[in-house]
């Protein structure tokens, strides 16, 4: 049996039905533990207690990008192999990605406030996330605007492909536009500087927690979409008959 059997809606529902409680539990535990542990870490000698924001900002930012990549892969699977669940999974993932981007943006802006003295700074990283957010919003808007599900899946798939190229392009354009005057303290954690164990392990745990949270939400939302589609399909069939 190939992995494609899970692309069958009924099979997907059966499999996730058993998997979901475990996933939800694991996500809840890891998320809570990671974030609480992060909140309890000692202050950084340079950044003071603001270092605690890392445990939200970094996992959210990581997921914001990863979810777009996942949507790109799901869209490609839909376009190439025509697996309907794949298209619905891409649709289900978008709002999660948008919220993750929003968290990354909000925590980034709040974190920067004491450093930069302003609530918003056109820092290349923050700007890139703002652009990514715009792409998420456009993607979600297109899904909701097109009534026919087959057309909507195809059109959003094409948009996701083109959007991926332009999101990447914008990232480099933004670097060119504002060469990161704020690479200092606020971003040291991400830029490969050696991080003390005190911060590293709770961060890993929070990352795992956010990833599991995404998976759990993705499965639930995909199941929602499948049920909605099934209802619409049954109604369409009755109308035709």
């Amino acid at each position, binding site marked *: 049996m190939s992995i494609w059997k899970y692309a069958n809606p009924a099979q997907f529902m059966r499999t996730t039905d058993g998997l979901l409680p475990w996933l939800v539990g694991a996500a809840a535990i890891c998320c809570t533990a990671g974030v609480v542990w992060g909140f309890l870490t000692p202050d950084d000698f340079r950044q003071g207690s603001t270092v605690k924001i890392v445990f939200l900002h970094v996992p959210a930012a990581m997921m914001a990008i990863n979810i777009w990549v996942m949507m790109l892969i799901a869209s490609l699977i839909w376009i190439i192999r025509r697996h309907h669940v794949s298209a619905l999974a891409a649709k289900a993932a978008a709002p999660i990605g948008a919220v993750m981007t929003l968290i990354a943006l909000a925590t980034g802006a709040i974190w920067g406030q004491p450093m930069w003295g302003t609530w918003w700074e056109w820092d290349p990283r923050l700007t890139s996330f703002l*652009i990514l957010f715009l792409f998420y*919003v456009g993607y979600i*808007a*297109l899904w909701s605007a097109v009534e026919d599900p087959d057309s909507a899946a195809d*059109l959003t798939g094409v948009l996701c*492909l083109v959007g991926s190229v*332009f999101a990447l*392009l*914008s990232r480099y354009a933004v670097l060119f536009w504002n060469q990161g005057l704020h690479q200092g303290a606020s971003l040291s954690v991400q830029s490969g500087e050696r991080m003390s164990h005190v911060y590293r392990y709770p961060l890993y745990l929070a990352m795992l927690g956010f990833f599991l949270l995404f998976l759990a939400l993705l499965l639930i939302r995909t199941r929602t979409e499948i049920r909605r589609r099934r209802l619409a399909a049954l109604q369409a069939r009755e109308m035709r008959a």
Partner: protein
Amino acid sequence: MIALLLRDLRLATRAGGGFGLGVAFFLILSALVPFGVGPDRATLAPVAPGILWVGALLACLLSLDRLFALDHEDGSLDLLATAPLPLEGTVAIKALAHWITTGLPLVLAAPLFGVLLQLPGQAMPWLVVSLAVGTPALSMLGAFGAALTVGLRRGGLLLSLLVLPLYIPTLIFGAEITRRGAEGQATATPLLFLAGITLGVLALIPWAAAAALRVNLR
């Protein structure tokens, strides 16, 4: 292909075609900005490159929702899709017609609006060059957005939402060329980037737009 281009140009210039609306919009924008930020040369000159580029972007958006929608409504799009022309070619030609009726007038009129916004004289050639290199990409990306939203009843707002993020790289490099031109710096790097983006867009986007059109036609 020539026939399609000529028809689109003729339709744009006939009554109700909306030729010149983009330039008029651009003029109004350039006239309004000083009312908002004040008439000082010192405040206007630094923001002029950005205003002019954002203005060009918005003027380009104005007529986009009609690019395929009119042909979709009256059935021409079905007929064009069955014509010997590949749909990719149709998209490219219609984007070219959009550029000639919207982008080209903007390029030619831009120095005038540069004067209104106190753009330094030495930046004028760079403004024209950057717009000439960048606006074809705007039209082609707009055609992609128009192809995505062609079947929708209220596609106009969605079109802006989808297309404007795609304009970001073009805007960044285009405005940067003009800004560097105004400050007398070297403009080669952003100009090359801008040209690269435009060429890439012109080469690849017709396929994406044609794919979207095919989906909307069935």
